[in-house]
């Protein structure tokens, strides 16, 4: 199929990124993503296929595993999200995974269906606390922890990338601007408008 | 000591003697061995039923048994609104009968229930909603109930402080029932209790029903925490406890008990003179004569007897309020509370008879609607207890 000549547009039309010491906000626009949903009773085969292809063990609890150039996010019982950088080579994770999981799982491209932001810095938990109802204290939620929840009524999948701390948050693309409005208000006391 | 009529002369007389002459508004009756009719539940519906029965059937021996005290249940937990701005054929006449009873109630029972026909305004926020309200208004008028469809300018004249230009929920107008309004909810209970008492009804408080006694499929009495009471007929009017009480009689009802929260703020100067409801979320508000803003919203949505709700609905109600009138964000919440109701699909009162035909064992499920108290009692009297 011929490559589209349309320019890619960020899902966030109005989000000001921040490099503030208290809170860094980055939009991750160059991701390739695919959802994996195991067919009924085939989860063990899915895990074996991913183990063989990428050398990682798919998590059965809300966690994230990283392999070489790819991450798998737990996305519900027997479901995962595969995420990688698209890069100059226009990597397409759906095309890559379909043959690996043929017949045992549904693999669907989510690259343009989800919008992802990365938040990091010492005040990130204070910012998230205003809209996310779960406990992100390091004693309760650790690096590679995953939560499917909501932020100010907007459904999100959230995972912790490192102990800086840094979190990445994925949402349906059409909610990106609403999320950005909430995030801007929530972060204002730390980084200004 | 029986109490005389409340009048300007009695009030003046008592003012001069330091209000030392008032007696209790109703007798704290002891249970007698038997009555012709026993109503279980001393809330708005139960007391109204007893009153209208006693008024019409002067010879009947009637009692109301209440497990707690008068005014301690749902009748003290609602948001005081009375209205008949419904749409369906079964609803409008029922609540309009109530409206008419409210209009003459205070003269009828010689009690100031603070009936205040300050208007109920339902806002609409889109063309489609305006059409739906026009249809509701037409339906009301076909039933002989007055109402007016207002545009945004007319609403602005009444309540200029709404967020008319809200980006998501702009106010386009409203459906106004001027005769709707508020009543002092616990005065409804007190007023009906006093009036029923003066017609000879025994109001028996702290008397919990524990069982029914049947003979040949006919109810003959109730066991209570204050002993056995014989009864020719029994009415049940116990709101969210309907399933419990009916289960004592071996009946399973199409009812679930749910919690509905309500809220009141600190007192502020007169601000909202009528009842205003938000059409894009579930939020309704009025201001009490003491100055508190009284408001509520949606059911919590799960079965509950706990008489308290949870935070998500508190948040939802407050968000509705902020979308409609952002200035209330600076007012402090004083209290919130929950009341439990029996609910059926359609959320209207249910009248039902015991399956043993001819036994004249009756019950009535009473739902959340204060506005139905008067007609509920009236209809229960007419349709059930007197058959």
């Amino acid at each position, binding site marked *: 199929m011929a490559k589209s000549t349309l320019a890619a547009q960020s899902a966030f039309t109005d989000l000001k990124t921040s490099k503030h010491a208290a809170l860094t906000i980055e939009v991750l626009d160059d991701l390739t993503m695919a959802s994996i949903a195991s067919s009924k009773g085939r989860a063990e085969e899915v895990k074996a296929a991913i183990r063989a292809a990428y050398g990682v063990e798919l998590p059965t*609890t809300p966690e994230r595993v990283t392999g070489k150039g790819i991450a798998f996010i737990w996305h519900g*019982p027997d479901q995962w999200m595969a995420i990688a950088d698209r890069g100059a080579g226009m990597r397409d994770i759906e095309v890559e995974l379909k043959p690996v999981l043929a017949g045992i799982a549904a693999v669907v491209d989510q690259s343009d269906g989800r919008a992802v932001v990365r938040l990091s810095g010492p005040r990130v938990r204070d910012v998230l606390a205003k809209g996310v*109802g*779960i406990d992100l204290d390091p004693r309760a939620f650790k690096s590679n922890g995953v939560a499917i929840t909501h932020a100010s009524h907007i459904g999100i999948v959230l995972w912790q990338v490192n102990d800086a701390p840094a979190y990445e948050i994925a949402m349906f693309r059409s909610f990106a601007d609403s999320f950005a409005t909430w995030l801007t208000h929530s972060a204002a006391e730390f980084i200004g408008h | 000591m029986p109490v005389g009529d409340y009048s300007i002369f009695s009030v003046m007389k008592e003012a001069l003697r330091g209000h030392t002459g008032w007696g209790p508004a109703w007798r704290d009756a002891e249970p007698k061995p038997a009555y012709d009719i026993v109503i279980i539940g001393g809330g708005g519906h139960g007391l109204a039923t007893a009153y209208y029965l006693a008024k019409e059937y002067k010879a009947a021996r009637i009692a109301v048994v209440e497990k707690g005290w008068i005014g301690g249940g749902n009748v003290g937990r609602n948001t005081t609104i009375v209205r008949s701005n419904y749409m369906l054929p079964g609803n409008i006449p029922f609540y309009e009968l109530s409206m008419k009873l409210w209009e003459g109630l205070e003269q009828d029972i010689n009690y100031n229930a603070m009936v205040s026909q300050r208007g109920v305004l339902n806002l609409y926020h889109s063309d489609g909603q305006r059409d739906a309200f026009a249809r509701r208004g037409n339906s009301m008028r076909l039933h002989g109930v007055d109402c007016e469809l207002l545009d945004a300018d007319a609403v602005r004249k009444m309540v200029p402080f709404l967020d008319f230009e809200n980006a998501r929920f702009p106010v386009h107008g409203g459906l106004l029932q001027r005769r709707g309004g508020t009543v002092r909810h616990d005065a409804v209970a007190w007023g009906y209790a006093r009036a029923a008492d003066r017609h000879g009804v025994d109001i028996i408080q702290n008397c919990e029903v524990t069982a029914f006694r049947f003979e040949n499929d006919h109810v003959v009495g109730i066991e209570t925490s204050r002993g056995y009471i014989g009864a020719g007929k029994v009415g049940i009017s116990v709101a969210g406890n309907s*399933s419990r009480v009916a289960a004592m009689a071996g009946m*399973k009802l199409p009812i*679930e008990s749910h919690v509905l929260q309500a809220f009141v703020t600190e007192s502020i100067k007169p601000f909202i003179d009528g009842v205003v409801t938000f059409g894009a979320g579930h939020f309704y508000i009025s201001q009490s004569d003491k100055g508190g803003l009284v408001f509520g919203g949606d059911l919590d949505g799960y079965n509950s007897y706990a008489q308290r709700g949870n*935070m*998500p609905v508190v948040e939802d109600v407050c968000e509705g309020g902020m979308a409609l009138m952002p200035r209330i964000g600076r007012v402090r919440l004083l209290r919130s509370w929950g009341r439990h109701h029996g609910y059926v699909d359609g959320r209207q009162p249910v009248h039902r008879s015991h399956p043993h035909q001819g036994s004249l064992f009756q019950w009535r499920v009473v739902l959340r609607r204060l506005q139905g108290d008067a007609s509920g009692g009236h209809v229960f009297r007419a349709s059930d207890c007197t058959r």
Partner: protein
Amino acid sequence: MRINCPCCGERGIDEFSYYGDATVTRPDLTSPTAMAEFVAYAFERANIPGPHRELWYHAAGCHLWLVVTRNIATHEILSVESARDVALARNANAKGSA
């Protein structure tokens, strides 16, 4: 109220949707008394204070259907099970007794 989701851990009820009595099962449409059975299935409830088995759906989380046993007089949550496991066990029991 907070529900301990078997997948996600303890979450507030803002993430869940309530779907009512978990003990009723859909009657057989071909039964001669199907109408009465469907009325009971759709409407009639015990509705007694105390433990109540009910369906909750983790709508803003992992999308699991749950059978929660909750005291409706106090809101205390007594147990949480996967509705799928409950249904499979019920079907197995039905087959076993047939």
